[in-house]
């Protein structure tokens, strides 16, 4: 029955005969490991088609969904990280195998007549298509790395002679990267290019079979063996070894995804994938730069490819083969040298390393937020853009660091500015409050560097009333008998901020602190003047304000250190409710948007998502 069926199929298709002819092809010299590379390339390509199809089923190419769907594959879907890892590292494996194949072809003169056309096919079509495939794939996760790395590639395409700019416009789907860059490159990456590559690879294999290698020596002739099983086993074992390596890399190394692409956020650490790093470094040579982008990125590589393509003819000359081998080895050596040089320089470059560190921090933060909160429909970038922890330090660096130090912001040693305002690392904390009470002059010491327009020092804070009050009352507050009362005053002040990062507040101390704030009575002695004499205060959860003293120059302490207080302080420190005429800080009301000011204030007040904070929030929400 079975036999009837197979012979029925065989008579009509010849599949079995074809298959066996394929397996029985005699190979001069018998099985060899170095003949496995081309099969390994075909295998990794098959692997890419398989994993690519499944990734295609779950990937969504648009600016708001590309990174997000990749994130979902990687962190939520069962086995998603492995599938993505296989696809990623198989692409790298393909590059290495291509290099090895080229070396093998040149060294063993596999391009010789009548195989010239195959050589041309490989060098001029298959190699470039695989390169474009890997380059388009680099962009698809739409993260910072791919976004900026691929821009270099499309800019290079744009520098090509004659139709370059048009090619760039068509590839990008417009002047800038956007939705249509993703859809177009994805159509190329998952549609046209793999289809083309599959056809070319089949043609390559058929032509290779049509023009088989012939034995060169009698020994080779004698050792001739069919493809099955000797060479087939070698091919299969190499494929398995490649797959094992890919699985190990995917498992133990993983694929790095940086933060979602952000055209407004520069990324100095942008680099192409390692196999294009040599080109990146080559273009950076001053002498190469001089001749323009097209020279380094198109003409020189084009010339090298042309020479490699012409090797079957060059190889006919007496010294041709030696030239070919020397040339390929030279090219590979140069690539190796440039790659190592680029890596070494990046490792030594502090700006590159700082940028990488920032990128890692952003990537971690956005992942944390996306896992905890889910991604809003505007995309994951909005999580980062609206996150005080991510944006606060950036805005602080750009706007506040000129005067205020902050321990969370690393400053390159030789770039430390002359601070002229307090270090805000601990702003609003218990320690800060205590120092404001007993060490005001020390806390505000950097303001000694303040100068007015005529260059005269401005000492309104250091010689102001609070500085005087602090030195008058310092000893009394620091009396051991008054320790509880000092702590109480501090606790009362800190409780006004309502900051979750400083909670919980000791209610008993807060109550006592409120009394001291009002009447100044300590366990031993009393304050020289009461807080309410100068400051406005409307304590938390109270119906009536304790005191109203706006415009005196003593800042209102209602909600001191909290988001609202800070927002107002950053926006208009000269307002009557803040420092009024005694103010020395620039107003940011007109320089920053309300969102930006809020981000700085929320960062400084610790008002951002944290794992522990979220847990307590959800508990209060459910009760």
């Amino acid at each position: 029955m079975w036999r009837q069926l197979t012979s029925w199929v065989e008579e009509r298709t010849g599949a079995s005969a074809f298959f066996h002819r394929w397996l029985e092809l005699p190979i001069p010299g018998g099985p060899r490991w170095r003949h496995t590379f081309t099969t390994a390339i075909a295998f990794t390509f098959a692997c890419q088609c398989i994993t690519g199809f499944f990734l295609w089923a779950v990937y969504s190419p648009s600016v708001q969904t590309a990174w997000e769907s990749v994130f979902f594959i990687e962190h939520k879907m069962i086995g998603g990280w492995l599938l993505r890892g296989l696809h990623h590292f198989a692409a790298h494996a393909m590059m290495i195998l291509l290099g090895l194949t080229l070396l093998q072809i040149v060294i063993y003169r596999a391009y010789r007549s009548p195989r010239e056309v195959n050589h041309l096919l490989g060098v001029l079509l298959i190699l470039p298509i695989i390169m474009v495939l890997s380059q388009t794939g680099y962009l698809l996760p739409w993260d910072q790395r791919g976004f900026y790395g691929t821009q270099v590639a499309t800019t290079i395409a744009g520098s090509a002679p004659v139709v370059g700019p048009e090619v760039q416009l068509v590839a990008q789907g417009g002047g800038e990267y956007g939705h249509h860059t993703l859809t177009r490159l994805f159509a190329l990456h998952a549609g046209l290019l793999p289809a083309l590559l599959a056809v070319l690879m089949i043609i390559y294999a058929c032509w290779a079979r049509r023009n088989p290698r012939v034995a060169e020596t009698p020994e080779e002739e004698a050792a001739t063996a069919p493809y099955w099983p000797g060479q087939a086993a070698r091919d299969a074992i190499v494929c398995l070894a490649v797959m094992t390596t890919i699985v190990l890399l995917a498992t133990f190394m993983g694929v790095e995804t940086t933060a979602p692409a952000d055209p407004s956020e520069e990324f100095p650490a942008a680099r192409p994938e390692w196999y294009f790093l040599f080109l990146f470094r080559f273009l950076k040579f001053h002498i190469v730069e001089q001749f323009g982008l097209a020279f380094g990125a198109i003409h020189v590589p084009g010339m090298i490819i042309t020479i490699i393509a012409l090797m079957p003819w060059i190889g006919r000359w007496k010294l041709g083969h030696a030239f070919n081998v020397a040339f390929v080895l030279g090219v590979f050596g140069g690539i190796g040298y440039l790659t190592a040089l680029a890596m070494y320089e990046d490792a030594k470059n502090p700006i590159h390393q700082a940028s990488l560190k920032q990128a890692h921090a952003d990537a971690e933060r956005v992942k944390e937020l996306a896992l905890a909160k889910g991604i809003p429909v505007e995309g994951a970038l909005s999580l980062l853009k609206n996150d005080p922890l991510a944006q606060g330090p950036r805005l602080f660096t750009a706007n506040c660091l000129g005067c205020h130090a902050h321990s969370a912001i690393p400053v390159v040693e030789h770039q430390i500015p002359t601070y002229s305002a307090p270090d805000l690392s601990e702003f609003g904390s218990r320690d800060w409050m205590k120092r404001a009470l007993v060490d005001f002059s020390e806390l505000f010491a950097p303001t000694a560097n303040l100068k007015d327009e005529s260059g005269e020092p401005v000492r309104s804070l250091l010689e102001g009333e609070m500085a005087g009050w602090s030195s008058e009352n310092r000893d009394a507050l620091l009396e051991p008998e008054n320790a509880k009362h000092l702590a109480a005053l501090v606790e009362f002040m800190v409780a006004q901020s309502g900051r979750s990062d400083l909670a919980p507040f000791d209610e008993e101390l807060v109550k006592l602190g409120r009394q001291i704030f009002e009447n100044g009575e300590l366990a031993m002695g009393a304050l020289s003047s009461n807080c309410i004499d100068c400051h406005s205060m409307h304590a938390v959860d109270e119906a009536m304000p304790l005191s109203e003293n706006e415009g005196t120059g003593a800042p209102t302490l209602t909600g001191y250190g909290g988001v609202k207080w800070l927002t107002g302080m950053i926006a208009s420190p000269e307002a009557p409710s803040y420092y009024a005429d005694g103010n020395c800080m620039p107003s940011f009301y007109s320089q920053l948007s309300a969102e930006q000011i809020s981000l700085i204030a929320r960062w400084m007040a610790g008002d951002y998502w944290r794992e522990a904070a979220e847990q307590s929030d959800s508990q209060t929400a459910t009760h």
Partner: protein
Amino acid sequence: MSATSSVQTATAHAAPLESVSAESAPIEAVAATSSAVPRRSAVVALAAAGSALVAILTPVVSGATVFLDPVFRKQSAFRGAKEGFLPAIPVADLPSDGSPRLVTLIADRVDAWNVFVHQAIGKVYLRQIEGQVIAFNNICPHLGCKVTYRHDGNDFLCPCHGAVFGADGACTNEIAPRGMDVLETRVDENGLVWVKYQNFRRGTAEKVAV
């Protein structure tokens, strides 16, 4: 067996395949020619077939795992439920005569990676009878259209295929395979009705949550 094989291969070289049967014999036959020792050839053939199979199955299995993710990983379609219950309306707002009121349940909708805040998750008919609250999912158990309440007849009609249900949710004609889906409810200490919102497989007599 091996003797016939080598004979066959000898002919196969001259006129490939005609004399070779279609099953595993020809592979062994070819194997036999590459080495004088057939057993060694069999090992090599096995290594070839085994390695190739494992190598190509790895991406296939890995991809299929991700493809089948919806079968093995259940992701709730909404977020913000308390033990599966979503808040509806105060029990006092339900008609005292026991007639149903259509209530929209609000929660954060979850769609793969996205969270859509404050969305209508589904609608339920709530009836209050002597302090007890009954909830019906308004999705018809027949083929998933939305059922509407008819005041005149005090019954529910599905406009798509004419399934009719009594005020108690039971079928009154033969179109739907089961009565309207009753959902669990709770009334908390503040008199707020909470509904455990679920959808069920359509078109089957038994009620299976999806």
